[in-house]
């Protein structure tokens, strides 16, 4: 019944949005000081909390320690929303003929309707080449913009690379200050013209991200390359949508635009500053860049009332007993309301001891559950890879997915469990499930929740 578009962040209208200062939303395990939370969230759009898997570590040997960093955006609307600066990057290759084209035009019309006069819109189309249909400008004459959109014709091939480049240059033509910017990349096929190289396309998106431009990837139907679109969304911190049927395009565009208008934190980066005798062994699902005793990763943008988490695995060396700050975690982001760059930080303190009793008593089950979810995401990745390369038979894939699904249900990840159920149904009906599952993986890796 719920066969509609499987989106990364399905919006459940029945669910009350939990505010950032609601103790149920922020309390993780033990000892949360409600007063300080309230104080922090009234000044900062987001709060950061770090919890160690174990508050104790062995002083006489090397220990592995996991840190759960949870980043929560405040739930209150704080003043007017910032104007958006968006570029629609639209595929009009030959395969878009018929309903896809009609619904895409309708979707663009919706976007135009939702924007206000101080928002900026640009439209770039790509087929054999990329072209600017409408340069970045304020949305004043809505009827005229729609007329332009309706004139769009079909081309032949799919030049994704040039489309992204031109679209991002339109976003960049407006000073970043004062706008929430986003490029919406919509495609129904594999890149077939221009630079078709996977790593070149993803590399370009990474470069654009370093200039502060986020790309959301929207894939329609069965022909697009989900691995590529997922990588774009992942590197960019934008969203990934799998649109199963053309008539769902307008709904998904509307959803993405609403997400954008609810953003409170953009360009979210997490930096782990290690003390001496500490190494970062991995940050689950992410590729860190390293500096002197530091590791840094890009996180996804955050909507109002939304939370995301990251798991950091540390290696701790032996040392004299006592309490140590093993790491300091800093999250830097652009506040979408004020436009300022803000930083929140949290110390990770571990006591080094030889008392085995203390060590076994110090385990935090919340963190262990999150690690299981992160590992489920890795297993999912392996299953998808196996399905894609046809090294896993459908029956085995279903068995693996069932395992992951029941684990996610145990951990309360019902939305992702539902995604996996949909994927299982798809496989049983003989259709591909990879397009759904790559979205589930992104979602699990971001640890997003509302």
């Amino acid at each position, binding site marked *: 019944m719920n066969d509609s578009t499987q989106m990364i962040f399905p919006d459940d209208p029945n669910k009350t949005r939990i505010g950032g200062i609601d103790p149920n939303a922020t309390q993780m*395990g*033990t*000892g*949360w*000081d409600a007063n*300080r*939370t309230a*104080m*922090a969230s009234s*000044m*900062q759009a987001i*709060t950061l*909390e770090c*919890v160690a898997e174990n*508050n104790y570590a062995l*002083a*006489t*040997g*090397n220990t592995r320690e996991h840190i759960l960093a949870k980043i929560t955006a405040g739930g209150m609307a704080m003043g007017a929303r910032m104007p958006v600066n968006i570029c629609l990057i639209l595929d009009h290759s030959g395969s878009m003929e018929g309903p896809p084209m009609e619904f895409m035009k309708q979707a663009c019309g919706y976007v135009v309707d939702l924007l206000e006069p101080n928002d900026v819109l640009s439209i770039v189309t790509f087929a054999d080449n990329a072209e600017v249909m409408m340069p970045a400008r304020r949305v004043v004459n809505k009827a005229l913009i729609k007329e332009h959109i309706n004139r769009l014709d079909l081309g032949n091939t799919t030049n994704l690379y040039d489309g992204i480049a031109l679209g991002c240059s339109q976003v960049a033509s407006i000073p970043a200050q004062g706008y929430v910017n986003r490029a919406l990349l919509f495609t129904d096929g594999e890149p077939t013209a221009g630079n078709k190289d996977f*790593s070149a396309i993803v*590399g370009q998106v*990474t*470069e654009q991200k*370093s200039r502060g431009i986020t790309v959301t990837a929207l894939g329609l139907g069965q022909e697009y390359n989900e691995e590529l679109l997922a990588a774009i969304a992942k590197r960019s911190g934008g969203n990934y949508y799998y649109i199963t049927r053309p008539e769902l395009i307008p709904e998904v565009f509307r959803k993405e635009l609403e997400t954008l208008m609810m953003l409170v934190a953009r360009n979210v980066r997490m930096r782990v500053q290690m*003390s*001496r*005798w*500490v*190494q*970062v*062994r*991995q940050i689950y699902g992410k*590729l860190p*860049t*390293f*500096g*002197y005793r530091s*590791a840094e990763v890009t996180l996804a943008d955050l909507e109002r009332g939304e939370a995301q988490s990251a798991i950091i*695995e540390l*290696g701790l060396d*032996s*040392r*004299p*007993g*006592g*309490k*140590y*700050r*093993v790491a300091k975690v800093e999250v830097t982001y652009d506040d979408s309301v004020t436009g300022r760059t*803000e*930083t*929140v*930080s*949290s*110390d990770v*303190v*571990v*006591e080094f*001891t*030889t008392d085995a009793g203390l060590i076994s008593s110090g385990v935090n089950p919340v963190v262990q559950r999150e690690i299981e979810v992160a590992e489920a995401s890795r297993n999912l990745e392996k299953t998808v890879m196996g399905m894609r390369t046809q090294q896993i038979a459908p029956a085995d894939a279903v068995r693996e997915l069932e395992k992951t699904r029941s684990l996610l249900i145990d951990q309360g990840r019902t939305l992702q469990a539902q995604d996996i159920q949909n994927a299982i149904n798809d496989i049983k009906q003989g259709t591909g499930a990879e397009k759904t599952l790559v979205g589930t993986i992104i979602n699990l890796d971001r640890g997003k929740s509302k």
Partner: protein
Amino acid sequence: MSYDFSIDQDKTQIGTMNADTTQMVTNANATQYAANVICPVCQTPNPPSEIYCTDCGFMLSAQPVEIADIPQAQPTGKLTTVDGTQEFSLQMGENTVGRESADVLVAHNTVSRKHAKIIVEGASVFVEDMGSTNGTYVAGNRVMQGERMELKDGCEVTFGGVTFKYTAPEMPAGEPEQEASTEEPSVEPVEEQTVESDVIESDAIEPEEEPQAPVALGSMVSIDGSLSFEIMPGVNTIGRRAGSNMIVVPDSYASGHHADLTAEDGNFVLTDVGSTNGTLVNGVKLDANAPRELQPGDEITIGQTVFKIEVI
């Protein structure tokens, strides 16, 4: 008084960098006049406003608990990235190398999840490849699957596209250095006489001198003459990002880490490491991660900047 919450470990401190919160005193306006606090664990002097040692993280309000049976820290070798940003101390036994959950974590697309392992056996250190996609190299020689290669002090080991330098543990014998320097004057008179003796002697001394003053083997000069970089022995990383590259190209069309220029045995080899806009040699685009040998006078294009290679 501001320590009370920090002692409670279960409680996370919300970072409030804002100036108007009075609890957290920032270093800027606090320290200068008061005496530094010496960390009892690592002896680092800390401003009195610090709750935790800025180096080892020890909570400065407490005393460390001496633990009798801490195993004697055996001197072990270490791996350092060419740009010096990452350093890994090797442990006795097996050290895993890879992109995920590894003792030597190398976050790079050219590195496999489980790439290689380094085995420390007494004073000997070996590298084994674990079936990585892009291979493991010791001083430019590929480590074949099932093969073990020994790491010697100062040699380079490459995992995929990332190169480390191996430094052996310091041995108690520090004397040889002095012997070498006292020998030096006696060598001088002979120096200009025969080529052979020169080569032999300088070979003996070189290991001492090299780390102090590496000599540029060539240079990379932009066509307009505005940029000039020395090419040092080993891998020279090229890219736009300052701080992590040895050759920083201020060109917005250059990638953060764009290419590697390796100088070895008198040869220069250029490898594009998967840059967005590509690397050109005499106008011909290089395939990513495919090394290309350079000749003096070759023109290379990084982003939109063209350089000429000169050999000293």
